[in-house]
């Protein structure tokens, strides 16, 4: 899933300040899962913004709506009938959602209420960790299911570095050393000898070699 966190209220208020009729738009997918932009959070943010405006005597219309997903055209199009009533959309979608809405309704400013962060897992309730960089060339089978790109602070392929201490990373002792995890994992599978081979340099062109990426599947298209 994609994780995000809400921007500080001050920053959001500064962004919406020029507008008088704002649609606060939530998303029921990833950002709801990480309690940043779902229906509840959309309600909370709207209420907070309305209170702040009342305190300053500002007369601003703030209304809410939550889509199942903001990144899929079929859902975004549901706004077609109502978007003209507003002069800005404050989106609680991830960056993909914000842009999908902006793409469809290009005449209205679509503002990001969240800071989109990483691709990750819900390790435990209320606790999310980054584990994928979307490199386009997955090598998890070579590393026992632990990604040295996303989970090693220095993206080493032939780690660990000298700063690994008691299974923790030198950058922050709360971060587990990915290479300790890789070694432990491969050891458990009995394939530690794989790490004796020098892993070759990464082909980064699969991530950024052609500019922003796309996928076209003719079998899926109309």
């Amino acid at each position: 899933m994609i994780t995000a966190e809400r921007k500080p209220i001050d920053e959001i208020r500064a962004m919406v300040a020029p507008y008088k009729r704002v649609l606060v738009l939530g998303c029921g997918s990833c950002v709801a899962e990480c309690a940043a932009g779902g229906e509840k959070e959309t309600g909370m943010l709207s209420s907070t913004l309305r209170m702040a405006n009342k305190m300053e005597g500002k007369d601003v219309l703030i209304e809410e709506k939550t889509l199942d997903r903001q990144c899929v055209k079929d859902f975004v199009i549901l706004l077609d009938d109502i978007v003209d009533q507003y002069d800005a959309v404050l989106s609680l979608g991830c960056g993909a959602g914000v842009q999908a809405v902006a793409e469809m309704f290009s005449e209205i400013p679509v503002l990001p209420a969240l800071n989109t962060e990483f691709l990750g897992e819900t390790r435990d309730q209320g606790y999310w960790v980054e584990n994928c960089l979307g490199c386009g060339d997955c090598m998890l089978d070579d590393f026992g299911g632990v990604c040295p790109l996303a989970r090693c602070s220095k993206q080493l392929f032939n780690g660990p570095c000298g700063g690994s201490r008691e299974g923790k990373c030198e950058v922050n002792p709360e971060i587990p050393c990915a290479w300790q995890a890789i070694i432990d994992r491969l050891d458990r599978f009995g394939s530690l000898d794989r790490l004796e081979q020098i892993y070759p340099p990464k082909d980064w062109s699969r991530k950024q070699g052609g500019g922003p990426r796309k996928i076209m599947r003719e079998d899926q298209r109309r």
Partner: protein
Amino acid sequence: MESRISQDTREQADKKPRISQGGKRTLALFYCQNTPESGEAVRQALEKKYASSLRLFPIPCSGRLDPLHLLKALEEFADAAYVIACPEGACRYFEGNLRATKRVDMTARTIAQIGLEKERVGIVANSKENPKPLAKLAEEILGRVSEIRPSPVLERPKTGKGTKEKKDDHSRKKTH
């Protein structure tokens, strides 16, 4: 439940409310239904006694409280919004009161970001040794919030032309 209402509670309910000088404050009070002597009759009696200074919302467990409830209350009619929870370790659903505390903390931090005093929200855990009935707790919390300045969010009648407070939308809000 009614037959078990103590003499004490009736006396509390009949006493004159102490409202601070300088105008009305409205308290929205969300209370766990496992609070002693908190049945419907008591609730009605308290709302009658305190008139528009107190609005009571029963919830099946304080853990059912959502920050949104507190925010909506503050947005629409309340100068303060509080939660009554069961004592630590005594929650019927084990952790509801702990979760409620975290949510209230989060709400306090949110309202502080727009310049509202953190004290406008709070949570009061009933005493383990001497659990108090709803009426007593309500009185104590009203006392606690009596000095808070009138909420700058709510419009007050200046010329007596009437307020914008919505009637009844939230006075019977069911949250379970």
